[in-house]
């Protein structure tokens, strides 16, 4: 049961956190200068966006859940399970971030999800 809750946190909080980070980075704007000083500026600007902090908090929750699960189960099982967040990610991208998730992108996401299911069924 506890493992199930940890997996739920890895997927739910992880995807929610990344959606928040994505939203924050869109507010920061496209990064075109990759010099170290410019990158520091990007990080500082990003940290001024509240969505970034919400994202970091959610991702930290997912990270510690991942650590807890990794101490109990194999990496080759744990990591593919986290891929279930792809469906949630595409939905979040479409409905929360206003991205155009085309039929081609959906079919790619579907293939990824089927791949994850096959990986799980092939648990040795």
């Amino acid at each position: 049961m506890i493992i199930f809750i940890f997996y739920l946190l890895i997927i739910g909080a992880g995807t929610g956190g990344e959606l928040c980070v994505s939203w924050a980075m869109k507010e920061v704007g496209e990064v075109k200068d990759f010099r170290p000083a410019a990158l520091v500026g990007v990080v500082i600007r990003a940290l001024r966006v509240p969505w970034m902090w919400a994202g970091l908090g959610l991702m930290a929750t997912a990270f510690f859940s991942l650590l807890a699960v990794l101490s109990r189960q194999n990496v080759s099982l744990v990591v593919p399970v986290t891929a279930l967040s792809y469906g949630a990610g595409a939905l979040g991208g479409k409905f929360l971030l206003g991205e155009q998730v085309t039929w081609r992108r959906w079919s790619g996401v579907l293939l990824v999800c089927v791949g994850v299911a096959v990986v799980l069924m092939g648990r040795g």
Partner: protein
Amino acid sequence: MNHVLHMIIEKRDSRFVRSVNAHESSKGPDLSQTDGSPGLMNFSPSLHFKTYLLILLMVMFGPLGNVLLGKGMKRIGAVGVATLPEALNFLSRVLTSSTIWLGIGSLAIFFMANMLVLSWADYSYVQPASSVAYGMSALLAHFLLHEVITPMRWMGVLLICVGVLVVGHTPPRTTNPVR
């Protein structure tokens, strides 16, 4: 590394601009690439290139970080976190493990690349495109942690990679930049 990345992109951008200038008088290259959906943003090859480059960094350092964390946590073993002393003991063992710190370093590089690419690319593009990392994770788990990967699991990894290829053929950005 960031400086090198900047130089590569700058060099590629200037090469692309030269190519555009050379063809401007005639037909000129078609900079837009859509998958048939209306309203998709136009994007240049340099945008595609830097998107791929950062996703490559994510694919390399994400799995490496996971495997290092897995290795570090296996050494620590299953520990309880129900009471405060147990939780503190768990935390101190995690924070004194060099393998876990290497894993955290790798994941920090992964996170930085993720942040940068999300400043222009769709989340629904970056997330599935970076799932090539699952194949990389299986390889690393097999060769570094000596975990058994069944043929069926390899088949799943292959399906994931095909899905990523399909997503990779959609435009990286479909929303208007905020600024």
